């Protein structure tokens, strides 16, 4: 579950005011808004990359507004992938696991799982500059999912892709979210992306969030 209550976040002159949103566990939430509407600011606040002025952020069952980003259990997929240029695809998938002290065997098992899930087995030895746009986003998704977070934040992850690749990635996102049972918050300004993916649609206008459609929150057993 991702929930914000009366969340206030400041970004320079701009303020996200009293943002209230709720995405039930295992659901796919899409947050839409124009450039400069505050959607990335809100996403960064949820991930712990922007300091919160007031209000609360609940991820899973925990209040995380004061926790460090790494303690929140949120995987982040940024707009351009933001892959690490010096690391191979395999090292991207292992990165969080190494930092979190997983054993080599567990790391290997997780890399195998993820590369099969995202169909990137043949890319494991490549570096980011040897990947296409769609491949990069697959790796970014794999890196974000690697440490098994219950929540995934995606910041316009498909905006730099051509139409065919975008369509492919939308299908992949849907499948991955269904298979992992992760709760997703996906920021975009693309309407068709939102239509295809969203269980919950949210709009943000000038820093104010409106929950457009609410879905009942059925219990979905997490496939993990």
């Amino acid at each position: 579950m991702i929930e914000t209550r009366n969340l206030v976040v400041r970004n320079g002159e701009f303020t996200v005011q009293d943002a209230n949103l709720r995405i039930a566990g295992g659901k796919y939430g899409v947050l839409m808004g124009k450039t400069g509407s505050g959607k990335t600011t809100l996403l960064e606040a949820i991930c712990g990359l922007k300091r919160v002025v007031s209000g609360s952020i609940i991820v899973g069952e925990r209040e995380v507004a004061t926790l460090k980003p790494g303690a929140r259990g949120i995987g982040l997929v940024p707009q351009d992938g933001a892959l690490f240029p010096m690391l191979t695809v395999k090292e991207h998938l292992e990165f969080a696991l190494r930092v979190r002290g997983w054993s080599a065997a567990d790391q290997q098992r997780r890399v195998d799982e993820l590369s099969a899930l995202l169909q990137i087995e043949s890319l494991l030895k490549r570096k980011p500059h040897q990947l296409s746009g769609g491949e990069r986003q697959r790796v970014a998704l794999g890196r974000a999912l690697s440490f098994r977070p219950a929540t995934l934040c995606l910041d316009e992850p498909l905006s730099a892709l051509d139409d065919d690749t975008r369509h492919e990635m939308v299908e992949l996102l849907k499948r991955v979210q269904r298979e992992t049972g992760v709760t997703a918050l996906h920021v975009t300004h693309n309407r068709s992306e939102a239509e295809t993916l969203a269980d919950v649609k949210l709009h943000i206008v000038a820093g104010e969030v409106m929950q457009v459609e609410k879905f009942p929150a059925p219990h979905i057993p997490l496939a993990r």
Partner: protein
Amino acid sequence: MTSELIPNTEPQAAASKWREPPSDLPFFAGLGILAAFYVLLIMAMLAADVSFAAAEWRKALASLLTEEIKYAIWLSLISCSITTVLSLWVATPVGYLMSRTNFPGKALVDAILDIPIFLPPLVIGLSLLILFRQTPLRYLDDRFPIALHIPAVIIAQFSVASAFAVRTLRTTFDEISPRREQVALTLGCSRSQAFWLVVLPESWRGLLTAATLAWARSLGEFGPILVFAGSTRTKTEVLPVSVHLELSIGNIEGAVGISLLMVVVALIVLVVVRLLAGSERVARS
């Protein structure tokens, strides 16, 4: 708006609407002439050195083979390398702090960091000399000789070279998007881990440039060394001091020989760095 200012009915306006813009030739010719002038000046300086030394090559070579100059070569190479390591060690955290953090008085600190670049070199040497004659540094200097000894050579080089390394690394860190660091934080890194695992590997080219710049600056450093470390032969004599000493006794051939040696070393460093940086760029593209 244009149509309001220039009504379409005027024949002149209609004609000028389709007029071809003037030729770009004079613009590029001007740029080319100015650029050529400067490039030729650099090449002519080097060519003059070479032709002078070639005419007097026996004397020039003989000066390079004296014990004093051999000592100066070694002291230059070693002191520059130590200075480079020290400069990077200081400039990396300073550059990172200046690039990634905001704090009260940042503009002031930023200006202070540039002082060694703008201050006349002799003044830096004099300031260091005076500083080490005052407590508590005087106490240190009395026990472990610094001023007018080899440590002074390194401190003098470090004072200037670090400023250049800081500038270079700050630009490097500015150009690295903080986004990747933020992703690392969400993956479980502390700020320190994100720095060591993500930022530093990515900034290797900036580190290399900063190191080269620091090394080359140190090799050419003269003013602060002359004042703070002195110019004692086979003691605090580095290559620029040698040039000065040779000139002061009228041995121009010797001075040119030593200068050419520094030119060659500097060119080798420049070429090696360009090749390293270039091959990585080609690999990436």
